[in-house]
């Protein structure tokens, strides 16, 4: 469910990218910093999760799966607090 919502966000921002299969979104320069910021902003709106600067490791944004894992991790941390 989370992945479906995330893919909708990603495709809305960059309809030209194959987010289901791409695993080097940052390393291959497919997403630039403006895309990352747009994604972070939408994730905040849709998931109520704020991805802060210390989570801006490029590895976290290389694939939809990695982004989804980051959201899950941050949600879990938030729930424990």
């Amino acid at each position, binding site marked *: 469910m989370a992945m479906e919502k995330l893919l909708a966000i990603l495709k809305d921002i960059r309809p030209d990218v194959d987010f289901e299969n791409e695993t080097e979104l940052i390393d291959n320069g497919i997403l630039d*910093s*403006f895309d*990352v*910021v747009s994604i*972070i*902003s939408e994730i*905040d*709106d849709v998931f109520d999760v*704020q*991805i*802060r*600067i210390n989570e*801006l490791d490029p590895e976290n944004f290389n694939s939809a799966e990695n982004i989804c894992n980051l959201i899950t991790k941050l949600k879990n941390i938030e729930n424990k607090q």
Partner: protein
Amino acid sequence: MAFFKFNSIRVAGVACAVPKNEVKSETYKSLFGDEEVEKFIEMTGVHASRRTFEHQTCSDLGFRAASELMAHKGIKPEEIGALIFSSHSPDYRRPSTAFVLQYRLGIPKESVCYDISLGCSSLVVGMQTVASIMNSGDISKALLFVGDTAGKSVYPEDRSSAMLFGEAGAVMLLEKTGNPSDEINALIRSDGSGFRYMIIPGGGYRNLHASEEVVMCKDGNPRTLMNSFIQGTSVFTFTIFDVPRLIKDFFELTQTTSDQYDCFAFHQANLYILKQIAKKAKIDFEKMPISLDRYGNTSGASAIVSLCDRYGNDSEKKSVKVMACGFGIGISLGVTSFEINTADILPIFEDDSFYEDGLITDPNQLYQKKNDSQHS
């Protein structure tokens, strides 16, 4: 919590000036390529900006704005009891530029004058400072100067910043009224953990004689230690999370709602950021005047530039309730609210003059007898 509420003080007028020299973003196509420039324009909304020439400073622009505002209001220099200059673009490393402006404007010695070292949040923090001075002292009128010449510290081939900044100087006149319904509110926050996000690393006393060797930075832009660095993604994330929260908290503290404001004069960081803030804080974007398309990101002056752009030629002479918001280098952010009559918002002035007596190119100029009659 840094929330401030001032009664019986009002914003009596604002004015600004920009250089005549207009630089269009598309002229950078030969340097950065068509695609890069077009993407920049689409994202930031900056089509053009104004740039000072080598020896013109934002205090020169502020001087013109203040001269116009004081003439418009019929205020004599001796009525001014405080002069605060808030900027990261002082005339000299020392003394404070406020003293230069005091001297040029003929403001009396019985006044308090100093600089605040801030950039994009200058207006809000400056208003809080000036209102606090007035609130606790016997000063009835004060001038707050804001503005920057940020483009001067950008490495010319730094594509992250070269096209972004415009240059401007602005002034706000505040006065005591004796009317408790005149109200200024301000909410201010600071986050020193982000001091590296926007910085000129060299030239301060930590590294006074920093290398001016050009280094290719990890973001693909060349710079020296004496140039401005902006970590764009870090700044973006702070902006889209912390600024909307600041505004929401301000609504709560002042028990106001978005629809009670006529105008949201926000720091013109870039168009994308402004749209994000408006969306997240549930602000009507139509009420947010935009000046960055023609004047660029004019740092601490940008909210006043936007007000002057929208209302400077307004013939209705109506009172408008304004929310102003500034956010950026520090990291510093703040929001304030006030009412102002549009008759006291002057149109944008264009000016290329500079204070020739202030340009010291030979140390022995400093040993010449000062000419007290020269205030121009």
